[in-house]
């Protein structure tokens, strides 16, 4: 039940942010569309753990800020490699990925791909490993150090 309430709240906020017209009729239409989407989601049975409001904690903005900073740093590295392509040293590596939840694993994989210079090439549930392709020596070293994994584990929060 709390999944449905969380979904409805997120949808309502999204609608309010996108609409900008707050007349009674429009508001009623908005509420009706939120209700319709929640009803369809219920019928499709696609509501799962990723809709858990508990995953939306205060840690998320902190993680995103850190990730954006990482993305900027990695971009400068890759941009330098574009200017002098002799620097590149493509490697395929395997790194440990021990996250508590599946959402955490996907977050980790997506964060790796989002950072230029590294792309997740293989990821499977339960293997505890991620296979990634790195463009530069530094990028591969950065992955091996496991700094990002520690951040993701922190993002997941303590055991509940």
């Amino acid at each position, binding site marked *: 039940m709390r999944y449905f309430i969380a979904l409805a709240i997120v949808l309502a906020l999204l609608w309010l942010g996108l609409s900008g017209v707050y007349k009674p009729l429009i508001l009623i239409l908005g509420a009706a569309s939120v209700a319709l989407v929640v009803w369809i989601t219920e019928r499709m049975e696609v509501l799962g753990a990723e809709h858990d409001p508990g995953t939306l904690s205060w840690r998320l903005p902190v993680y995103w800020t850190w990730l954006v900073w990482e993305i900027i740093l990695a971009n400068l590295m890759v941009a330098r490699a574009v200017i002098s392509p002799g620097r590149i040293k493509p490697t395929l590596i395997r790194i440990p990925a021990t996250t508590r939840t599946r959402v955490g694993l996907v977050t980790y994989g997506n964060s790796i791909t989002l950072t230029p*210079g590294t792309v997740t090439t293989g990821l499977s549930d339960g293997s505890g490993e991620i296979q990634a392709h790195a463009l530069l020596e530094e990028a591969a070293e950065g992955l091996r150090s496991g700094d990002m994994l520690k951040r993701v584990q922190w993002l997941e929060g303590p055991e509940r």
Partner: protein
Amino acid sequence: MIEGLIDVLSAGLLLTGAGFALLGGIGLVRFPDLYTRLHAGGITDTIAPLLIVAGLILQSGISLLTIKLLLILLFLLFTTPTASHATVRAAISAGIKPQGADDATKERASSNT
């Protein structure tokens, strides 16, 4: 005075974003194989929209438009890694070997079957 400053700042952000997008395009041509080219595409996927959206937010001021622009950024940052990952997966299952380590792909292919 302040408005002029904001305009200059936003123009700077937009131009830097465009410059990074261009660099991504150049890298797409310069890098040797599919996997390395994908990294170059990553520049155009991440920092270019970041800077461009930041520049546009400065132009729009704080309003509902800001929320919409941030949502565009959010959706872009959520979907582009998925697309990159799908491209890599497709390349691997098509048997394209990355330069550097080709033994790991074999290992992966055998563990999949």
